[in-house]
């Protein structure tokens, strides 16, 4: 193995799939994106978050050359999008906003159109495999106008994966999917990332999915970055959600009512109490409950992206 080869491999490993540098977009006097910069390392699942009207869709559209930035640059795989659009698009699969298809054609006819546009020569077996992968087996011959939104999402995913892209950009891919579909999508994306090394940019309002999938993320609001980094680094102790299960409910209620943590109690269902607590307060709560005769069945915590998101986008 030569040094150059090793250098090449290491460059590929260390390289960024996406590099967005100071992009801006103005529509007349309205500034949709003020100054956005971020990098998506190759091989990562990257969350792209923002509330409605934050400039998220505009940014994604700029990244896919659907709209041109007023300023700034976008590179994919180390190459500027402006000069290498055709080559770059051949390496990207995407669903933007909602999956729209030719409703007067069947799902299979739609996919054949997209395969042809991608220069992909699929065999019947390849299509069968793809339909099984996205859960559309047996319905591929139906006209798309008969499809539910969830089925269109599955077809959108098939379209995005059709040409075996290196980078998959998914904007709200789980909208309309049933819980089983959401789990299947999550497992599929994790498989594509872990086993095939695909880089995935994932945008969703279902923050639990983003939390479950993404290695790192960016949160934008009012057209600019408000947070960026690895998920575990971003979620501070303030965003801990503590679940406490007690054996004797009445004693538990009284104990919490008389405690200094009563204002931090978020929810109570049956014998379960849910609180927002800093990490160092958890053992103190546990000790307090035991000392007050409450049977402590379990005490667990997790960091919550939802709280973090609301705190940084709405100041809550």
């Amino acid at each position: 193995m030569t040094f150059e080869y090793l250098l090449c491999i290491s460059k590929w490993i260390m390289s960024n799939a996406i590099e967005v540098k100071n992009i801006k977009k103005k529509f007349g006097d309205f500034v949709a994106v003020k100054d956005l910069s971020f990098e998506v390392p190759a091989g990562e699942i990257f969350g792209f978050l923002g509330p409605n009207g934050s400039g998220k869709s505009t940014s994604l559209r700029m990244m896919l050359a659907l709209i041109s930035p007023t300023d700034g640059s976008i590179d994919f795989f180390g190459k500027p999008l402006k000069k290498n659009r055709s080559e770059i698009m051949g390496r990207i699969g995407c669903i933007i906003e909602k999956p729209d298809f030719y409703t007067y054609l069947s799902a299979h006819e739609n996919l054949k159109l997209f395969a042809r546009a991608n220069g992909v020569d699929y065999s019947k077996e390849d299509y069968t495999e793809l339909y099984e992968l996205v859960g559309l087996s047996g319905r591929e011959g139906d006209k798309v106008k008969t499809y539910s939104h969830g089925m269109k999402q599955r077809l959108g995913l098939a379209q995005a994966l059709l040409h075996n892209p290196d980078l998959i950009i998914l904007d709200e891919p789980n909208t309309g999917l049933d819980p089983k579909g959401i789990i299947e999508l999550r497992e599929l994306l994790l498989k594509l990332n872990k086993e095939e090394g695909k880089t995935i940019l994932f945008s969703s309002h279902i923050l639990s999915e983003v939390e479950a999938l993404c290695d790192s993320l960016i949160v934008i609001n009012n057209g600019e970055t408000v947070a960026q980094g690895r998920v575990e680094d971003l979620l501070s102790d303030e965003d801990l959600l503590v679940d406490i299960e007690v054996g004797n409910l009445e004693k538990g209620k009284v104990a919490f009512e008389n405690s200094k943590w009563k204002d931090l109690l978020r929810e109570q269902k049956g014998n379960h109490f849910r609180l927002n607590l800093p990490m160092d307060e958890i053992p103190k709560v546990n000790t307090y409950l035991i000392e007050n005769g409450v049977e402590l069945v379990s005490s667990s915590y997790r960091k919550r992206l939802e709280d973090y998101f609301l705190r940084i986008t709405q100041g809550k």
Partner: protein
Amino acid sequence: MKEFIAILKNELIKTIKRPRSFIGFGVVAFICLILQAAFANDGREILSLVTGQLENTLSIEGQVLNGNLICFVLLQTLIIQMPLLVALVTGDLVSGEVATGTMRFLLTRPASRTKVLVAKWLAGMFYTFLLLLFLGVLALFVSRGIFGADDLIHVNSEGLTVIQANDMNWRFAGAFVIAFLSLSVVATLAHFLSTVLDNSITPIVSTMAIVIIFTIIGMFDMPSFNVIQPFLFTTHMISWKDMFEDPVPKQEIINSCIILFAHIVVLLGSSIYIFNRKDINS
């Protein structure tokens, strides 16, 4: 080139499979068939009234009511409706896909915007050609099959013109070529408006509005209108009729074709320029 052929094939498939594409064929077939039926029923009676007035001055032999005359009449009738039928499909080619969101998929594939747009324009041209070919087959060959082929007698501003039956085919071929060029201008105009506007109905309505306004301007013999009339495509859309003059005014036909072709080049060039700079927001 392989990439362009692939997206052109996609556009042709979409055009052929769209339910809207069949409206034009249905309308053309309906109008041709009812007019042919009406001529078969009442044509001889009406013509005898006209030819009866001429019998004192000239002798008419053979079948005045024949396939060539019916085709000539059908062309004159349908050439008014054909722009609407063409615009109905071509005015929706770009804006329809922008409105329904499928344009996002097309433009996030490797093919450039210019290729996508030109493929759509060619698909529009193909549709226009098919529609005209359909009209040609129904108007000429079916009419000849029903009424037979004989000399064409028609009246123009110069008077009565008689064209021999064996001198007809090349004239009809030329007329269809000019008609295709005329309708191509309408198709390219609708395609241009479809590129500029984002909903599917406005380009169709706007195309028809432009055709109507230009036609009205072309109808009036007024000095201020006379200045612009030679440059309006609608003025040259009726040049196909010149193919049935004797002798055929070749230079006038060539001039009309050049002006129609220039319209296509300018409109298509403008579409490409605008589409390459257009933000796809839907």
